[in-house]
């Protein structure tokens, strides 16, 4: 699971009001290089919760993203920033670990890169 997906996932347990962002427990992170696409990064930027992404990237061992969201103009001009954004969003994979509901602490395991968000009957 990449941080793009982490940024789109919330705890789905019945009754949880603030299920985002899920806390990350890291056992293993892998990095896989993918080709950078500036248009994609500019298009996806407005949908990204910056704090969730920058916090998650630090937990995954990457410390290059600023804590505060950048001005949109940075996305137009700053190639170096785009590279860092790209790396955090699309190249870091949580291979083994877990996602924790920020409210209930319920643990969603991540094995072989795949989060298991299936709920028990009394959680639906």
């Amino acid at each position, binding site marked *: 699971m990449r941080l793009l*997906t982490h940024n789109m996932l919330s705890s789905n347990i019945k009754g949880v009001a603030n299920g985002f962002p899920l806390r990350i427990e890291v056992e293993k992170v892998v990095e896989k290089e*993918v080709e950078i696409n500036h*248009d*994609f990064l500019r298009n996806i930027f407005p949908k990204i919760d910056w704090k969730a992404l920058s916090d998650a990237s630090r937990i995954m061992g990457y410390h290059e993203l600023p804590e505060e969201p950048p001005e949109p103009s940075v996305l137009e001009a700053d190639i170096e920033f785009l590279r860092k954004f790209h790396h955090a969003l699309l190249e870091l994979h949580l291979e083994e670990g877990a996602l924790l509901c920020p409210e209930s602490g319920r643990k969603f395991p991540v094995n072989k890169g*795949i*989060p298991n968000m299936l709920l028990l009957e009394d959680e639906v």
Partner: protein
Amino acid sequence: MSYKIAQILLLSSHPEVYEPCDDSFALVDALLSDRKHLMEHKPVLCMEMGCGSGYVITSLMLMLGDEANGAQFIATDINPHAITVTRETMEAHGVHADLINTDIASGLESRLAGSIDLLVVNPPYVPTPEDEVGREGITSAWAGGENGRSVIDKILPVADKLLSERGWLYMVTLTTNNPSQICRQMMKKGYASRIFVQRSTEEESLHIIKFWRDIDMEADANNGVTNRKAAPPGIVDSVRSQIQRLSFWGGSDINNGTI
């Protein structure tokens, strides 16, 4: 000209995972036949709900290929074996989508709302007794309850929530599912639809339907309420006068070619 799709020989498999069959092939054929428009559409986020063997999502990624302008893909399945098989199928083809083991899009609905530009679904559409719906393993790939509509009727509101303003949905249905009623239902939510591929096999008659948001239809279905709500007053007036000028207010002249 032919485009790359997933190769059957490279597909992974598992006894509890539905293997690609006529329905999967028909869906991929529909996507292939609309490939030119998909390229022009430039989807940013693409998704498959219920990826099964991974045949469809892998084919989609391959056919959009390097020209996909960095589009990213997410796929879900309720069956953990299907997720594993999809991962192996994708790896064998050298493509990547983020996979999530979840029911329809549970956990993604709030943050992904209004963000998916391209959604593909081959739902469990086979009419079965209601108690077979929601069972584990391969049954989840086909058991559709009464008229095969139980899961489809859960998927449609989720699709409506996830699709962006310019989002497209391609979905497999069976005649028994009453596709025309599904289209009418989606029309009320502001979607135009078109049957893309119609294919009869010995066992079933399949329709692949494409849905897309149609502003005209939305205005029509809601008597313009949506437009008025969405825009500040000054703009509303100009929108309204424009709408009246284009004369689909009454709903009789939508296809006059001026829009």
